[in-house]
């Protein structure tokens, strides 16, 4: 299955390990991701004022270019997925904005014909989880993984239709397919504070803290997410917690493709564990999932 791939701004910089693991794992699962030529910022959270069409220019451009290459657009970061998918819908339904945008950029009109998919959706679409189960060489037995969805993947559910907004199961399926154990912790769909962290630390502190606490008292070994912004907030909060609240046991946060890479038998080095803020290798080693050979 061939898709256009929209990495999103952090994938080439801060979260390079996420991007590498995506490329390596999708190659194995024969999902061909062809990166969009000279893509730019997806427009961040769905432009707040929907009445002005200008906020949709950049997502429209990416969608229009993906459509020209003739295949659907896959993205990984929750924010990009949210923005692109909702722009796709607005453009499909609202002829006026569509003409305004295409006149402004003088490209021929694109009316939302192709689809926007998250990498997990692309996997689920063509029996991805079945293929993962087959190709998992090193199942992560005994590893308790807490999937953190965040909100941009799920809401507004009528437009995104990613999963059941109140009770999503896609990450659980993914975790089962790589052999790990999914931990059901209540705050998995609470908001991590997103970009509010820029304006008011106090609000974010509360949000991220409750997520981490809820995951830790369900004895989760690893938290996985697919959104660099959630990763950033949770990781930063974890550092603060380590300093102030010594009772708190830090939990490593990984991108789901890193665990996938491990499960598919790629070398540990290529999974990019080194650039995670909290190193996950000790726990993986204690669970006997990596460095089995050496002491």
């Amino acid at each position, binding site marked *: 299955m061939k898709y256009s791939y929209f990495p999103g701004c952090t994938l080439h910089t801060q979260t390079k390990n996420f991007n590498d693991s995506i490329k390596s794992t999708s190659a194995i699962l024969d999902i061909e991701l062809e990166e969009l030529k000279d893509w730019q910022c997806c427009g961040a959270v769905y432009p707040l004022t929907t009445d002005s069409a200008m906020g949709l220019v950049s997502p429209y451009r990416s969608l229009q270019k993906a459509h020209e290459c003739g295949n659907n657009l896959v993205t990984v970061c929750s924010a990009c997925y949210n923005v692109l998918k909702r722009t796709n819908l607005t453009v499909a339904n609202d002829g006026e904005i569509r003409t305004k945008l295409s006149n402004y950029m003088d490209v021929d009109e694109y009316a939302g014909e192709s689809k926007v998919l998250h990498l997990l959706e692309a996997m689920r679409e063509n029996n991805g989880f079945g293929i993962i189960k087959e190709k998992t060489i090193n199942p992560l037995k005994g590893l308790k993984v807490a999937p953190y969805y965040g909100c941009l993947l799920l809401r507004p*559910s*009528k437009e995104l239709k990613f999963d*059941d*907004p*109140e*009770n999503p199961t896609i990450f659980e399926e993914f975790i089962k397919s790589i052999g790990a154990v999914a931990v059901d912790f*209540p705050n998995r769909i609470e908001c991590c504070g997103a970009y509010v962290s820029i304006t008011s630390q106090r609000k974010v502190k509360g949000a991220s803290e409750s997520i981490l606490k809820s995951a830790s008292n369900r004895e989760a070994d690893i938290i996985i997410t697919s959104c660099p912004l959630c990763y950033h907030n949770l990781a930063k909060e974890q550092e603060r917690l380590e300093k102030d609240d010594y009772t708190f046991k830090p939990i490593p946060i990984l991108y789901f493709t890193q665990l996938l890479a491990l499960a598919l038998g790629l070398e540990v080095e290529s999974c990019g564990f080194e650039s995670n803020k909290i190193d996950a290798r000790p726990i993986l080693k204690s669970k006997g999932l990596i460095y089995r050979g050496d002491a």
Partner: protein
Amino acid sequence: MKKIGVFVCWCGLNISSTVDVGKASEELKNYPGVFYADDYKYLCSDPGQELIKKTIIDNKLEGIVVAACSPNMHESTFRAAAEAAGLNPYRVEITNIREQTSWVHSNKEDATIKAIQLIKATVEKVKKSEDLFPQQIPLTKKVLVIGGGISGMTVALEVAEAGYPVILVEKEPQIGGNMAKLSETFPTLDCASCILTPKTAEVGRHSNITLMTNSEVVESSGYFGNFTVKIKRKPTFVDWEKCIGCMLCQEKCPKKTNSDFEHGMGKRKAISVAFPQAIPYRPIINEKECIYFKTGKCKMCVKVCPVDCIEFEQLENIVEENIGAIVVASGYELLPKEKLSEYGQGKYADVIDGMQFERIASASGPTEGVIRRPSDGKIPQSIVFIQCAGSRDNQKDRPYCSKICCMYTAKHAMLYKHQVHDGTATVFYMDIRAGGKGYEEFVQRAIEDDHVLYLRGRVARVYEEDGKLVVLGVDTLSSEQVRIEADLVVLATAVIPSEKAKVLGQTLKVGTDAYGFFNEAHPKLRPVESMTKGVFLAGCAQAPRDIPETVSQATGAAAKVITMFSKNHLVSDPQVAKVNEKICVGCLQCEPICPYKAIEPETIEVRIGHTVEKRQVATINKGLCQGCGACSVACRSGAMNLSGFSNEQILEELKALCL
């Protein structure tokens, strides 16, 4: 050429002030086809009527045109007069020269010309009229009530009292419906079964009511006054005639199963009766759970039964009944909590819905009235009630208000507080809808006397955290987020139509709205009738409503049925569609247009010379057709025509008006 009489009315000054009535009747005297033309001061008065009758009899007139006020006023009067004089009433037509001519025009000359033209047009219409005779439709005076809840029983009792036979069909093995499951009822807190059992008993023993429990209506055909209905009687595996109701079998039966009457709160035996006051008080074997059906062994009930009335090989049978009217009282169900994923999607045992709380609080319930936690049976110290769980929620495409939840949640809170004085009962609500008689006072009593804590806000999520149920909500009045750890959470889930309602609607050809409630003929003026003539609605089948409203609506439906049965046969308006079978080719393009589904294909035999040819033509069910005439426009060859407003009549009127 027909002999037509024209009568122009002065109506005192109303018409004569702007229409020269004398000139009009003069002009009409020598119009082709008019035998007698005259004007009179007040035609609708008795002497006026006498004048018309006398002229008809003396001159043996074949058609009458009365130029006076609007047909909506006196058409029936003049038609009755003509009928008294022996002329078919549908040979009389009215020209409206008052409301639509004299009163609305000032120029006398124009008004007179217009009046004369209108009268000439009506004369042309009468020339093309035919004798029409109202249809006598035979009527079976027997009513079928579908649903044995409080509404079905009320209708059955009312109609039975009026002396007409009633067939009451109930899909559960016993009647009582949802009301039998309730503990107490608001606003008087009197116990539900105390006020219900006299009614169920009376239904049980009333001579006019044939009770068919454990059965469903599977097919219905025919039209109002003449329905034939097929009822499937599901097997009970116990011969209820022989059974004396000693319930030994229920005691001795080894197999315990989940009782759907208790909504999962309690258990019952494989052979048992749902609750002690059930009518008919006879046991039924649950095929899926009974050991004999699974393995062929056990047969304990056969051993203990003194009158040997267990029949394992009992089969379902289809009963056919001729019915005059149908009352749909299929009641309601609560939205299953599995549908509400934000409240745990049914995973947590201690998150229950309103009906389950009723069973726990009910004296004949599994806990004999003591409110306990279903998970560990402990008495809960803090309960959270969540209103509008699933209703007033666009996300779930159910924006309507279920009307009864505010009241029964207040009742639940009061019952709990009466048992556990120091317990805390919190109610998350948006707006309290307590509009009935004594309702608001009831809720005030819950707040002030029983100290129920009402928090205005919706609950975001409910999840289990080390044995406690954490309720995340908000209190919009103090605009603070609220986190309550409760022992028990009761959801006031939405009222939805009973799950077989949609199928029932299709069988009876009665429309349902987007949510599955039955469509009433007119929301304000005809709430108890459905769109299909002869099918009436009662209770929650039509929309969520509480018991007082249900009973009053049920009595209304019963009144409708009784008025329908008060006549020996039904008279249908003869101004309905009619098919000219010589021309009809049977293309049935008229069929989709009829809103009353009164058109069906039929095969007729036509003799041409010595060969008999079979042909398909359309036929009209005179009982259902209301005479709108939309089908006659779809008929290309003009085979479908509407008597009273036929193509010929309208065309002649048109031509006369354009001369």
